[in-house]
């Protein structure tokens, strides 16, 4: 009779309890670092934020108490990621269009899709090494070696797979009826793509691309020997061909300095970097969830 009731001491129930608590512990361990990390960065970095931070140049490491600001690095990050986007977005969207709209699942498109996945798995530092060999050491860009332009190119290699993938997947989600309708009224293929399929996939593509840009903005490894670092203000177009600072490299360089002032600057830069990357992520997540809801209606 008793066997119909839940028996605490049954070995299977004890085992179940044990494993359940184990998985709860796993989940706790998984989220604890994030909570620690984010709160620590927000407190430690946030307390360093001053208006001068955004306007001054960083002082070269020394034991001064004042480390200056991060203006060149902030602008540099914006410029380098913009260059990377200018290269990666057209190439990636174009490639994604070919994969999703034109290819018929043949050997070529399978190879490209495979290549996209492989390229996504290439370590980011290898992208830096590649650009170093191709552009920095050959001085192919009008005799300049380390430059913001080279850094942007290295980052674009990392962005490219993300952009192709999101375009490909976004376009695949567009219902075929739309294409038939457009082709049926006599539109050519490129009009159909540019006026019908691409706009209707725009939001999912844009979300993916923005996430890709956010990821690229935090990449350091491809920049440390392509864009290098600079302490000075970016004043004009010509500075693209010289060493350029970025937030990520600033954090790397100044974290390893033995001076407290530089370390604090690294924390402040982390605060800005993490805050912007997280807010982009959260915002696009909300946007994606919102679109999903409206689509279902």
């Amino acid at each position: 009779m008793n066997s119909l009731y839940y028996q605490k001491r049954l070995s299977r129930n004890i085992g179940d309890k044990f494993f359940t608590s184990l998985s709860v512990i796993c989940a706790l361990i998984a989220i604890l670092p994030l909570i620690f990390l984010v709160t620590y960065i927000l407190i430690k970095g946030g307390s360093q934020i001053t208006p001068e931070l955004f306007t001054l140049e960083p002082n070269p490491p020394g034991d001064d108490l004042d480390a200056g600001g991060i203006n060149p690095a902030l602008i540099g990050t914006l410029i380098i990621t913009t260059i990377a986007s200018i290269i990666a977005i057209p190439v990636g969207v174009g490639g994604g269009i070919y994969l999703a709209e034109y290819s018929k699942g043949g050997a070529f498109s399978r190879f490209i899709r495979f290549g996209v996945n492989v390229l996504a798995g290439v370590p980011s530092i290898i992208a830096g090494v590649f650009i170093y060999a191709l552009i920095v050491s050959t001085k192919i860009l009008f005799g300049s070696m380390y430059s913001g332009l080279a850094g942007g190119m290295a980052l674009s290699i990392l962005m490219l797979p993300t952009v192709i993938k999101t375009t490909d997947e976004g376009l695949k989600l567009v219902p075929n009826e739309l294409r038939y309708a457009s082709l049926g009224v006599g539109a050519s293929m490129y009009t159909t793509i540019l006026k019908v399929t691409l706009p209707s996939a725009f939001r999912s593509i844009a979300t993916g691309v923005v996430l890709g840009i956010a990821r690229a903005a935090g990449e350091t490894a491809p920049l440390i020997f392509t864009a290098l670092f600079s302490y000075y203000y970016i004043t004009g177009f010509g500075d693209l061909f010289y060493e350029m600072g970025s937030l990520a490299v600033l954090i790397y360089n100044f974290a390893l300095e033995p001076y407290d002032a530089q370390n604090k600057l690294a924390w402040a830069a982390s605060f800005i970097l993490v805050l912007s990357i997280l807010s982009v992520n959260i915002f696009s997540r909300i946007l994606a969830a919102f679109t999903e809801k409206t689509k279902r209606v």
Partner: protein
Amino acid sequence: MEEKLTLFKNRKRFGIEKNIDIIFKNTALVLSSFVAIILLGIILVVFFQSFESFSRYGLKFLVTSEWNPVKDEYGAFTAIYGTLVTSFLSLLITIPLGVGTAIFITEDFVPKVFREIIGSFVELLAAIPSVVLGLWAIFVMEPFFRTFFVFLHNFFGWIPLFSTEPTGRNSLLAILILVVMLLPIVTSIARDSLNQVPKKLRNAAYGIGASRWKTIFSVILPAALSGIMAGVLLALGRAMGETMAVTMIIGNSNAFSWSLLSPGYTISSMLANQFGEADGSQVSSLFYAAFVLMILSLVVNIFAQWLVKKFSLKY
């Protein structure tokens, strides 16, 4: 009627529009082949740059650990060993944690809202730049774990892995920060593959009287295994290529040691550290090391993709 048909037949697109259509298609084709060009370019460039070092040291490069720019002697054993040890050990810690978290998220222990929050929390962890994790590791993790490492050395010092006195940055810290970085990857892929297991299987298992964890261990996990394996392999590729956080915390020493409590090296941290100032045959040797790293991560990645293709959509 017939007249109308011929009318349609003769109606052609304007020449310009047709040409634009063709140009558009071919542009897209060229743009998509850029991926292949870049990929092949990377492999070829890195290979040819490493040629000098490759022909001089051959495979001896992989097993000797002398790295001496003064004497022009190069061997990357310490770095290769460091890469493999840090990535495999970190994965060893991450797999149970990640899969455990994934199970927690996919089962109904707590209301759905909490599970979704935890899930997106873990995914946000993946968005944090590794250089920031490195900064955090230097200033927060290292002091936090210092006493623990001393304890580890005092009690388990007889094991070669813990045989050196812990002084600041070391390989074990690199492994721990890698765990933080890999957790989101393993968790989110494991969660996705657990979610893909059909409900029928679970209901059938419950129906014949299996307990919850009996179901998980003998039905759900085996069904999701291929997806989880692929996620693990992707994480392994990431771990091997991960540069910044590891470079900042591993201590960057080329002296070989079995101990995890001594400073170490990985291929990527060696590249990050030395590439900027290297010249002569050191550059070529660094390219050789980069080539080794690339081959390692390519093999892991291709194997992961093969696994996904082979075993996906079984249900």
